[in-house]
């Protein structure tokens, strides 16, 4: 039995106060010729993970516009998910050690799942590598467009896995990447769809000032003093120790507190080790708050971001880094590393400040604390940048545009 995942019922009208009626009317106009058009979306999980989170909210909006948008979820045993997890890491650049049987198991699950899914829509969108081999059984007689939506960074893949996947990917009619940097040289058209945030989700929606203050006070943070915050899982690539060093430089010039908030330590041995290192490095500094938050508590993360004076994202390597868009949406001045998808969001000196080192990060924070008017302007422009480019409604519009383009 194929799982039919839950979606979140939010109407397009709810976005009108945030985006204006014209932007929503435009979506309805664009969707007009696609009325009744069947779109099949396939991914590997119904809950948890960024893709499921996007589809859960995107598909009801597409349906409201008249598209017959369907969501299919793969089913796999532990062996399949172990292999696809290893594939995922290898595509991100880790060196894998794969046996021929791993590739066979991958293909076997693809074929079994494909056989159970009636993918007869005008458009078929396959998300990420797990179901990528579905393309093998594409019915050639039917007028369909098959798109591969890659949510991961393929800039430095482990060759054995990419060489295995590339022939499948090359058979699609097009591929979508989140950043030009994440794409590969392919013989098919490649499109750019930025990842998006939902301004109505608990992680991003407006909050009462009282609630924000309550959250800060509950964690022992003084809402009246300067707050520097990085929200990221405890991972060396997010450089929490570098953030701590930058904070100490800033502290020589400005009274401030540092919040390092994130999850991922409880079920990840490396995360626990990083968390312990950060705690040790922080020592007894009463102005450093290391918060291990469960991902199920997006409202608290929202409140911490909204209560911050400056938001930091000092990653050493990054995917797209959507926590930056979350902070910008909240009109926060951001200081971030120029890695991965961050420079797309932080346009230096326009929507935030970029840095390349601990010292640079500290300098940019000091600059913003010394120039609150500039910090405010960067935050406001950052908000507009997110509104124009990184919201879920923009993601929906890109899909409509792609479908209209293919339907010409």
């Amino acid at each position, binding site marked *: 039995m194929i799982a039919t995942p839950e979606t979140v019922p939010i109407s397009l009208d709810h976005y009108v106060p945030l985006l204006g009626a014209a932007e929503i009317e435009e979506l309805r106009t664009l969707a007009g010729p696609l009325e009744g058009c069947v779109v099949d979306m396939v991914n590997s999980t119904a809950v948890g993970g960024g893709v499921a989170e996007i589809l859960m909210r995107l598909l009801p909006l597409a349906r409201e516009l008249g598209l017959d948008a369907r969501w299919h979820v793969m089913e796999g045993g532990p062996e399949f998910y172990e292999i696809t997890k290893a594939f995922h890491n290898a595509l991100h650049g880790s060196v894998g050690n794969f046996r021929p049987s791993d590739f066979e198991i991958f293909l076997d699950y693809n074929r079994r799942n494909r056989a159970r899914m009636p993918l007869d829509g005008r458009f078929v969108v396959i998300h990420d590598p797990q179901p990528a081999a579905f393309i093998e059984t594409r019915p050639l007689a039917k007028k369909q467009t098959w798109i591969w939506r890659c949510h991961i960074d393929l800039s430095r893949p482990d060759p054995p896995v990419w060489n295995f996947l590339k022939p499948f990917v090359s058979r699609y009619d097009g591929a979508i990447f989140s950043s030009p940097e994440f794409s590969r040289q392919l013989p098919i058209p490649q499109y750019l769809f930025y990842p998006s945030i939902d301004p109505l989700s608990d992680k991003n929606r407006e909050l009462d000032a009282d609630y924000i203050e309550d959250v800060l006070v509950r964690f022992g943070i003084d809402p009246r003093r300067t707050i520097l915050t990085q929200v990221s899982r405890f991972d060396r690539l997010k450089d929490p120790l570098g953030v701590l060093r930058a904070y100490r430089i800033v502290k020589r010039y400005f009274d401030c507190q540092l919040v390092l908030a994130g999850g991922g330590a409880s079920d990840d041995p490396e995360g626990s080790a990083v968390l312990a290192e950060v705690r040790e490095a922080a020592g007894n500094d009463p102005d450093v708050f290391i918060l291990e938050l469960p991902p199920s508590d997006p409202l608290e993360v929202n409140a911490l971001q909204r209560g911050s004076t400056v938001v930091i994202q000092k990653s050493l390597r990054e995917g797209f880094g959507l926590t930056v868009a979350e902070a910008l949406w909240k009109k926060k001045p951001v200081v971030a590393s120029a890695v991965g998808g961050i420079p797309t969001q932080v346009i230096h000196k326009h929507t935030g400040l970029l840095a390349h080192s601990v010292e640079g990060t500290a300098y940019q924070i000091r600059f913003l604390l010394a120039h609150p008017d500039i910090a405010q302007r960067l935050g406001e422009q950052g908000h507009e940048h997110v509104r124009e480019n990184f919201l879920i409604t923009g993601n929906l519009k890109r899909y409509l545009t792609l479908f*209209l383009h293919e339907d010409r």
Partner: protein
Amino acid sequence: MNATAQPFQFVTAAYLTRIENQRAMTIAELLASLGQASDAAIFYHTFQTLGQHHFLTEGFSNDFAQWVLASLNQPTLAERLANIDIRDYVSIAELRADLRHIVAEFCDSYPKQADQSAFEPFYFCQTLEVTRPLPWDAKTLAGFRAGLERLSHASFYYHFVASRLRLQLRTNDFSHWFEQSLGLPELATRADRIDIYINTIDTARRELIELVDREIIQ
């Protein structure tokens, strides 16, 4: 005010970004790529980017200038590239020639810097445009004003900025209609003077509405 026989048809435009298999890591490579890139790519990094970043009203002009400044720290070249005003162009060929001329001069004058590696590569992309007529048009200035207020950012950008290349004229769709269909050349000129580089789309629209209101009162 009389109705015109040629109504203004409002259109909505949506833009799809296609990633090209082309990138530049140095200014010398940028120069070579500027010669090879498709017209749609030059359009994307100049015209289109202005629409995507319309809310930046100080110092943002095009992707080339921004990359040269942020990834290569070459403010002089960045300033020269930023000084390119897309309103001066009615063809991509002219725009491409001027961009290449500026970058080539830099490469000739500073060959060492031209080979300096950037922090981040420049990735060429191109625009695919999809348009749809909106379910309203305007036969009078009052009707035009009402339609203008209902336009999305992308539609306004399509009529006011991208239109120059389509019309092959140094004007925009709105001014063209004011002059050709309503016989209002002064309004056309004033509307075309609205500076999209120092305005957001919302403030440019407000300025245009004020001009139209004044014309209606007269």
